[in-house]
């Protein structure tokens, strides 16, 4: 992103309720910048799809306002919003050919025939479907249908493309391939994308920014690196990636670093993004890949001895379950190699991690 990104969509204090009592989206303030790939990530029922539907104009906004290019979208019907949408099950028109599906938005805009043909063919080439224009959607594979939906949403050069779990129906391999293709298209076409998913891997690999939702509230917005490495709260830490957590109380603080006494009595040094006071309850978050077994002696402030409970072979690495600090569900990832092959159930090992990889969070 450039230094002063131009805001395309702005949600201002947006709320949504169906029954007047429970807000499915609450106090939403969010900006989507031009050219940005923003992902709304959250468990099902967290309100992310509702946000997309409000942006597309299919759900009324209960309170607050959504603007596009600084103009309110209130009372603008869906067909005038100029947003391309890729639906979860593609929503391809089964009675129209692939060509007719992609041409549909152009026909609605009364674009002359020759121009339509040109644009549709270009769009189909772009998604590698050149020559399949005469097929019906149900004669295509899932991945191909997905590409048609993409071409249809892009062909009329919309202001923004909305994608609602577009890869949910594909198998794992195809999904990963499409992730990369969508990312490439985004870069090539310099388009703005708002993407909804519950798959954290997808969110991390594709997005410029990720907004993590839970219970109708945004929990954290930031780059994939930020939300992974510096989770703002326990929900984010647990929802994204694997997480080991320890409970305890702040013993002392100095700068951004705290000493935390765990319930087991051990003391751990960790970093905190916000100032903490001594005596405050704290939750420590530690990613499994930051926990080293048999650490080299220097630069590791936290050292413990642990017992191996279980080793699970994962090919490139081993997942090791450890008992330590009064718990027996601490996970560490050990890269495959002679050292980790020697790990056996019941063996006592030295483990450690540096304070900067261990975050102090407020308990839930």
């Amino acid at each position, binding site marked *: 992103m450039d230094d002063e990104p131009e805001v395309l969509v702005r949600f201002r204090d947006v709320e949504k309720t169906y029954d007047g009592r429970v807000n499915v989206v609450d106090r939403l303030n969010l900006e989507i910048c031009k050219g940005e790939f923003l992902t709304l990530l959250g468990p099902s029922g967290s309100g992310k799809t509702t946000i997309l539907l409000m942006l597309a104009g299919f759900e009324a906004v209960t309170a607050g306002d959504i603007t596009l290019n600084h103009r309110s979208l209130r009372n603008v019907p*869906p067909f005038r919003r100029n947003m391309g*949408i890729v639906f979860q099950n593609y*929503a391809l028109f089964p*009675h129209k050919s692939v060509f007719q599906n992609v041409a*549909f938005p152009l026909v*609605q805009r009364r674009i002359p025939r020759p121009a339509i043909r040109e644009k549709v063919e270009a769009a189909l080439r772009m998604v590698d479907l050149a020559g399949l224009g005469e097929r019906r959607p*149900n004669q295509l594979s899932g991945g191909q249908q997905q590409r048609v939906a993409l071409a249809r949403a892009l062909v*009329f050069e919309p202001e923004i493309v909305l994608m609602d779990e577009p890869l949910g129906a594909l198998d794992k391999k195809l999904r990963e391939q499409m992730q990369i293709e969508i990312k490439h298209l985004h870069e090539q076409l310099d388009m703005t994308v708002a993407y909804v998913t519950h798959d954290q891997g997808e969110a991390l690999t594709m997005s410029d920014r990720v907004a993590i939702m839970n219970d109708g509230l945004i929990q954290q917005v930031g780059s994939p690196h930020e939300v992974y490495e510096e989770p703002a709260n326990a929900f984010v830490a647990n929802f994204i990636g694997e997480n080991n957590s320890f409970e305890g109380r702040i013993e002392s603080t100095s700068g951004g670093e705290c000493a935390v006494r765990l319930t087991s009595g051990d003391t751990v040094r960790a970093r905190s993004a916000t100032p903490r006071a001594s005596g405050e309850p704290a939750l420590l978050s530690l990613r499994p890949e930051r926990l080293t077994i048999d650490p080299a002696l220097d630069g590791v402030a936290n050292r413990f001895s642990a017992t191996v409970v279980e080793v699970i072979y994962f090919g490139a690495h081993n997942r090791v379950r450890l008992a330590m600090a009064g718990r027996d569900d601490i996970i560490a990832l050990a890269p495959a190699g002679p050292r980790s092959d020697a790990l056996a159930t019941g063996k006592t090992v030295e483990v450690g991690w540096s304070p900067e990889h261990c975050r102090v969070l407020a308990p839930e």
Partner: protein
Amino acid sequence: MAAPVNATRGQHVWYWCLRLICALGFVFLIGPIVVIVPISFSSGSFLSYPLPGLSMRWYDAVVEPFPWMFALENSLIVATTVTVVATTLGTLAAYGLTRADFPGKPFVFALLISPLAVPLVITALGLYFFFARVGLVQTHVGLIVAHVVLAVPFVVITVSATLKGFDWNLVRAAESLGARPLAAFFQVTLPLILPGVLAGAVFAFVTSLDEVIVALFVSGPAQLTLPRQLFTGLRDQVDPSIVAIATILIAFSVALLIVVELLLWRSARQRSGKMD
């Protein structure tokens, strides 16, 4: 029902008993319809086999202007009008019933399809008294109105069933791509539910074409329909010309059956295509 393997003797006996019942059942269903067809080509006037010879003489009687061709014309006029009116009203209503909830919706649905459950004689009696007061007895309009009542539940049921499987996301997709609501209806919704609508229309047409009880009550000689003429013929004097007209109607049923099966097959194929 595959033949049992590793079965006891009793199971085998039972299996063949069931097969026999089924075979008799199918012969019973289709036999009478098949057996009368050749009689219509008989050169004699007995309604039995063996045929003395083959001829088309009974078909010549059928194509005489009166009564059969007159009755056929009336039937077609009435049935066509009924089909148009019932399909339009029924499709609108089914669309409204699926689009949103309103108070009393289950009751409204039940009311709309209730003509199916009320014995025809009772419907005929009510319509007869009603038409007598408003001057519709022995008019074409009266007969058409009466048949719309009987035909419309079929349209409501078939179109509702089709709409139940309809993916409303397609309408959203169309609107997001710039189609106005009316354009979205005509370009996306209607083409997709068309098989259901057409199947409903065929049902409406057949209902009117086959209806005799209400016609006996509310129509006069000028509205003589094919089933009424058949009824009169069967009651008074059964001759092979009745069998000839029956044969024509059977051929017509076969054609309709094929049309409806094709429609439903297409509709099912479209729906399954959407799923994968």
